[in-house]
């Protein structure tokens, strides 16, 4: 361990990033609960489900910390899989089956694979250390601090009233309807963004020809 201090800062930075990630997921969860028609009416939770939830939450937290504190990019990816997968399980617990499955496909099966793939393609040695210049760290720190602030605001402002009731079976159609009515513009914007990304990637890939 040659540069412990440096590692500490970068770890803190990653902690903040992970906080941002949790924010993202919680926003997704909010969307999910709306989409799956979960109301705040009282409903039996079940001891088993509660235990499972706490276990999954623990896994999510531990793996997020693992993402922050591991030094090797591929191990980070594995920890990240733990975080993403446990969020998927949470979706299933919330009866947001569609979101859970999509979480698995898009994040665990897609993004993460691409991440590891990129590391493999570009790395010089099998074990790559994650390191970046200080100026980048500064910017990233500012952004992450802002995100953390947002997270805190959400945490304090949210109404955590009551338990939730599950309405199974409605989620897919509900999501479909919401996506092409209420959230049509963001949906289309995301589509256009992805299109731009694809064109850009194709452009980058063809440049050396």
């Amino acid at each position, binding site marked *: 361990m040659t540069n412990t201090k440096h590692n500490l800062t970068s770890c803190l930075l990653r902690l903040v990033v992970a906080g941002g990630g949790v924010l993202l997921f919680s926003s997704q969860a909010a969307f999910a609960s709306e989409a799956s028609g979960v109301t705040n009416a009282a409903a*039996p939770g*079940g*001891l*088993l489900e509660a235990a499972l939830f706490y276990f999954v939450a623990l896994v999510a937290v531990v793996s997020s910390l693992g993402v922050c504190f591991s030094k*090797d990019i*591929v*191990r980070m990816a*594995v920890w990240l*899989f733990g975080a993403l*997968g446990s969020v*998927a399980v949470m979706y299933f617990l919330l*009866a947001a*089956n*569609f979101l*859970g*499955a*999509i*979480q*698995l*496909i898009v994040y*665990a*099966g*897609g993004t*993460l*694979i*691409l991440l*590891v*793939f990129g590391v*493999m*393609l570009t790395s010089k040695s*099998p*074990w790559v250390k994650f390191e970046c210049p200080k100026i980048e760290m500064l910017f990233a720190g500012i952004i992450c601090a802002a995100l953390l602030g947002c997270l805190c605001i959400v945490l304090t402002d949210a109404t955590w009233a009551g338990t939730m009731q*599950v309405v*199974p*079976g409605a*989620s*897919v159609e509900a999501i479909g309807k919401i996506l092409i009515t209420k959230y049509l513009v963001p949906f289309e914007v995301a589509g256009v963004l992805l299109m731009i990304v694809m064109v850009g990637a194709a452009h980058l890939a063809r440049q050396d020809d």
Partner: protein
Amino acid sequence: MRILLWKLWMGYRIFGPIIELLMAMFRPFAVAMYRMGGPIVAQMAGMILISAVVAVCVGVWAHAMLFGFVDESILATAASAGVELTGAFSYVSPATWGLTPSQIAVQLQQVGGVAANMSGVAQYLLWPVQFGIVRDLVGLGALMGLFNIIPVYTIWWERKVAGRIQSRLGPMRVGGWHGWSQSPADGIKLLLKEDLIPDGADAPLFRLAPYFNIIPSALAFVALPFGATYVFRELDVALIFILGVLGVEVLGVMLAGWASNNKWSVYGAMREACQMVSYEIPLGMALLLPVVTTGTLNLTKIVDAQSGGWFHWLVFSSPFAFIGFIAFFVASLASCKRAPFDLPEAESELVAGFLTEYSGIRWSFFFFAEYAAMFVVCGLAAILFLGGWHSPLPASWGAALGDAWYARGVKGLLFSGPVWFVAKCVFLLYVQIWIRWTLPRIRIDQVLYACVQVLLPLTMLMLLGTTVWVWASTSECETWAMVTAITRYVLGGIGLMFAFAFPAIAAYGFYHRRAMVGNLVQDAMPGS
């Protein structure tokens, strides 16, 4: 920690000899059982096979009767108490429905006959079945059993089929009849092999990777229905759930390749990632065809939509679905890394790809996962396009048989039951094996070309076409109804031709098996 280990060690010192004595006693017993069982299996193989199938059917049927009866009891009791139950018996159901043995006894009395006479014992036997956890344990047992048996016997079958394709016999020795215990024997050998972790490998990841591979493929069985009620968890999004967990399997392969600290392994991993990420898109597109046609992601409902017999299977519903099925099958080959898409483990290029450094049980985990995934994609193909657990006869014909216990059995065998689902899966597995032992492997650029330039536009087009087709079918136009009907019967006729051609060709090959190889082979080659 050290004290714990010491305690464990002392425990072993005390109980170890006893355990070893028990094992020593068990060992000759097991050997004797095997020696006795082997010849019996060898002599009565056909009968044992048939009786095993019958026993499985009877077991499944009894299990369904049992669960169904308890469900009915719960509903009836609830109805008599004036409570309406909805959402029924899924995993969000409460831990208990509060059924007492006496209530069950009342229900049993109503059934009458043998059930009424047995009600004194049966009420207590049936009582635990109402608990979700008990059902889950039973289901999990069945699931793990399936997950173990399917890959083991798929491997055996692949070796047999490969042998026949290559004019040899395949496994013949172990266990007697056609090497029936070859795969279990291999499994035991693999268990006993050294679990080797190369120097310089990332040991934790190296150990972890096989689980990333095998757990998702086991998870896929959770949502894969074998019959109308034979599913561990009937998810409303079963289709994308299975797609999602199979997608996670890639991560195991990539970690295996990465953690091995071997360049060939890394190549295997990179190819796997490349291939999977690209082929998931056409695979998903092709999966959407039945979804668009039936309007649901629930596999059970998709199958229910095809209960009208041969010509109502989704593969014959439109020309787009017909081509989409072929595209799906090709993409599923790629997603299972089966030949000709077996690039991640291409033995002539990458030694063994991501498997290069693996040995023993970890190695076999990958194979378990691969063969289980093969079965899952074949099952998906059967469910989505080939009518799932329905036989070619319309299920409505079976409805006339009534609901008696024997009628249920006949319906399960003739009209719709897990037997049909397994049969279809086995046929598709056979096609996969057949393709593997016939075709050369394609190159990575050709793999990607086939995906991006051929399959992706094709499946997109098919999806578009299906959408238009479905939209047109909603209209009341009579001409269009005629067009769909004619299409259905024409495509169904083509399918029927294939369905008859396969056994016909197989029968021809069987009866001319000596002539096809040539006289010289018969005289000159051993084993002929």
